[in-house]
């Protein structure tokens, strides 16, 4: 049955090829349903794989490698395109294809009016293919291939509306940032090959515990380089600036790629390489620190933004920070669990936000919304569920996963009280910005009376409802996830959180955030204005996203361009070119000097002959 696994790659790829080659000939909606069917098919095959895994005992579930074809054989180096089926990849694939399928269906409604409808679905299928490749790859090389291909799909989809300048720029930014990550991963692959002589996961991870001792320089370097790729892809500090800009793409893209699946690939990578990361405690601390700092950073910025998608984008960054915190402290399965629940509720939020934008005729500024609960009831309910889940309201999906992360931040192998405290702050922020957004959008009175919001068609609302249901009950899957993934993370143990006090504090933080939002945004504008006035400098800094874009522009973009110009003007034109030309010019000058001899006057020629005769005679006489 595992031999069918190539279908997971093949179906989206076939969808992509069919749609991109003959997209024009498809009737409009058929293309969308076709693409969705391809992803649905991949989801079904993944379910088949899941069933197959369950048919075996937990210890046998690992390392089912399917080789498709030999890709390259070089001196001492050979690569096969092969697929690795194990609980982790199947789990990740379930999220990717499952959520992906829902979003495909949703997109049929959302992109209905777009004139490049089929192209959009072609790209979406390409993305699903690339993500499946990333997840299924059995070695680091194809991991990188998939890694870069999802970057490509992300690029194509962010810049989908090619006539918008901002979209084009955002796409380029995302691509370049991801290329930086790719380079890091490629170098990591070289180092892995240098040390293990292979890029195959199975062999590398088997050899890793004996090849290094903990905090060995090499393993640190490998893990850090892999981390560059992971951070770039998952928009962690300091490579995060592309993610908010990426919201220029269509909303389903934001939901699929920039919330549910692709940006969590970094977490998947760390989880996948847990054998390596367990050998590098320093890196683990770094991951946890960056994760929790990003969580606070993104949460604080998200508190003051006004673009509905950007707020959710910052919350995505923040939540991925939580995931990195989880894997950083050593509880991989909790990180993956949060990845799953996050995929549910964040996709839900994005899709609901898309529904809002759709209903508001492409308006994204929350200051111009308000009172939408009457016009869009389904969206309102689902958005509320998503918000509760995101804020970690008890008994929603987000509550279980996030609570476990916060507790593990203290109690897990690499956890400590600082991580815990920072995580608590981030949790509070999450509650605040989530409900700020919610209140701005749905509560109160409409701020733009001329707008006529309308509920979205059922092709959009049904996926919303499915995701909402998952967001509510997804948390109950927690124990299953731990059990299912435990063969992969054999070495990592879960923390035991029996400190009820800490749990209460965590819940209180989430609720506190929500209550603060209620207090500020529901009860009146006075407090809001007062708070803004009091915290003006901080507010400015937050509103401008800590000026990170400006700093990068000043520190990196300008020098690069300046040096480029300098190289072109000084080094190329005035340096190398000039000196080469000078060689020619000097030769010409010397020749001009010599050419005086060539005067055409017979007597001077005769004189030269005499001189020559004198010279020859000199040789005759003295030699």
């Amino acid at each position: 049955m595992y031999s069918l696994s190539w279908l997971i790659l093949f179906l989206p790829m076939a969808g992509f090829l069919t749609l991109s080659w003959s997209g024009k000939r498809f009737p409009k909606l058929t293309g969308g349903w076709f693409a969705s069917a391809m992803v649905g098919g991949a989801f079904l095959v993944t379910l088949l794989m899941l069933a197959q895994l369950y048919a075996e005992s937990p210890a046998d579930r690992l390392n089912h490698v399917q080789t498709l074809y030999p890709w390259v054989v070089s001196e001492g180096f050979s690569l096969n395109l092969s697929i690795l089926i194990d609980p982790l990849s199947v789990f990740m694939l379930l999220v990717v294809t499952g959520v992906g399928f829902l979003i495909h269906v949703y997109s049929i409604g959302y992109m209905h009016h777009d004139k490049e409808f089929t192209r959009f679905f072609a790209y979406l299928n390409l993305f699903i293919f690339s993500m499946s490749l990333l997840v299924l790859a059995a070695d680091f090389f194809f991991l990188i291939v998939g890694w870069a291909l999802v970057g490509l799909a992300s690029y194509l989809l962010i810049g989908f509306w090619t006539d918008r300048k901002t979209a084009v720029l955002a796409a380029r930014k995302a691509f370049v940032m991801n290329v930086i990550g790719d380079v890091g991963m490629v170098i990591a692959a070289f180092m892995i090959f240098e040390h293990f002589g292979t890029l195959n996961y199975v062999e590398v991870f088997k050899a890793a515990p004996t090849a290094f001792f903990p905090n060995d320089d090499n393993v640190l370097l490998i893990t850090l380089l892999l981390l560059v790729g992971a951070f770039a892809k998952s928009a962690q500090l300091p490579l995060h600036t592309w993610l908010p800009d990426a919201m220029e793409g269509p909303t389903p893209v934001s939901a699929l790629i920039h919330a549910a699946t692709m940006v969590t690939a970094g977490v998947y990578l760390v989880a996948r390489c847990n054998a390596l990361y367990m050998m590098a405690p320093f890196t683990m601390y770094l991951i946890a620190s960056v994760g929790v700092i990003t969580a606070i950073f993104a949460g604080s910025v998200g508190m003051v933004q006004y673009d509905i998608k950007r707020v959710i984008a910052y919350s995505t960054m923040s939540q991925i920070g939580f995931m990195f915190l989880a894997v950083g402290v050593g509880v991989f399965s909790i990180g993956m669990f949060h990845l799953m629940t996050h995929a549910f509720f964040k996709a839900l939020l994005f899709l609901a936000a898309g529904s809002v934008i759709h209903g508001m005729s492409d308006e994204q500024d929350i200051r111009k919304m308000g009172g939408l609960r009457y016009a869009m009831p389904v969206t309102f309910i689902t958005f509320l569920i998503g918000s509760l889940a995101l804020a970690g309201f008890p008994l929603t999906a987000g509550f279980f996963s996030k609570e476990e992360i916060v507790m593990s931040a203290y109690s897990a192998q690499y956890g400590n009280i600082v991580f815990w405290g920072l995580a608590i702050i981030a949790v509070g922020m999450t509650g605040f910005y989530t409900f700020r957004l919610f209140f701005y959008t749905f509560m109160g009175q409409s701020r733009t009376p001329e707008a006529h919001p309308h509920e979205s068609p059922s092709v959009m609302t049904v996926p919303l409802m499915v995701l909402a249901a998952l967001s509510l009950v997804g948390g109950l899957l927690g124990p299953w996830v731990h059990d299912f993934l435990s063969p992969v993370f054999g070495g990592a143990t879960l923390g035991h959180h029996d400190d009820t006090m800490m749990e209460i504090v965590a819940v209180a933080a989430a609720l506190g955030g929500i209550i603060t939002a209620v207090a500020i945004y529901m009860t009146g504008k006075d407090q809001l204005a007062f708070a803004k006035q009091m915290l003006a400098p901080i507010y400015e800094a937050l509103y401008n996203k800590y000026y990170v874009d400006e700093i990068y522009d000043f520190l990196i973009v300008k020098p690069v361009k300046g040096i480029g110009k300098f190289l072109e003007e000084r080094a190329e034109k005035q340096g190398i070119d000039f000196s080469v030309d000078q060689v020619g010019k000097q030769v010409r000058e010397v020749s001009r000097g010599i050419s005086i001899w060539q005067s055409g006057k017979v007597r001077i020629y005769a004189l030269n002959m005499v001189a020559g005769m004198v010279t020859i005679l000199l040789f005759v006489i003295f030699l």
Partner: protein
Amino acid sequence: MMEFLDQLLSFNLDRETVFGLFEQSIVFIIGMTAILASLGVVLCATPIYSALYLIGNMVCLAMLFLMFNAEFLAAVQVVVYAGAVMILFLFIIALLGAKKEGREFSFQNFMGLSFVGLLFCELLMAMMVGKTRPVEGKVTPEVIQQVGSAKAIGIELFSNHIVPFELASLLLLVAAVGIISLAKFTYKPMRKRTRT
């Protein structure tokens, strides 16, 4: 060279040499005259005088040829050079109206003088290098005296050197054709030449 000067200054002359003292002094005087005449060729400002000096030089050389047992060549020298060639020169001078050349001391002249001086010194020093591969022939002066200069040369020329001789005749033919074409057809410049 030094030997020669020794002989000259000490009058310690060896009777056994080929030339007697009388002959030697005649050779010496004629040789010096030839040198002086050649100097005259170069130094005279008017071409006609140069031509006359050149005739003198050639006659001197012809006489020296006589002293070196080359009677035939001496005759040819006088007839061809002093006769034909120099007459040609004089005709041309008459035709072109020789102008007196102004004297000037230019860089060219200075360089010429110094290089030629060097050349002369080197030529003299070349005497000290010695014979490279001496060819001692069988045709001694006595043999020539017996046979006669013209006949000896004739035998030699038509036996061993027949090919150069024929080639020389061809050369003369070419020269004849050449001057006819030069004189007959007027020269038309291909394009207007500019002098710089």
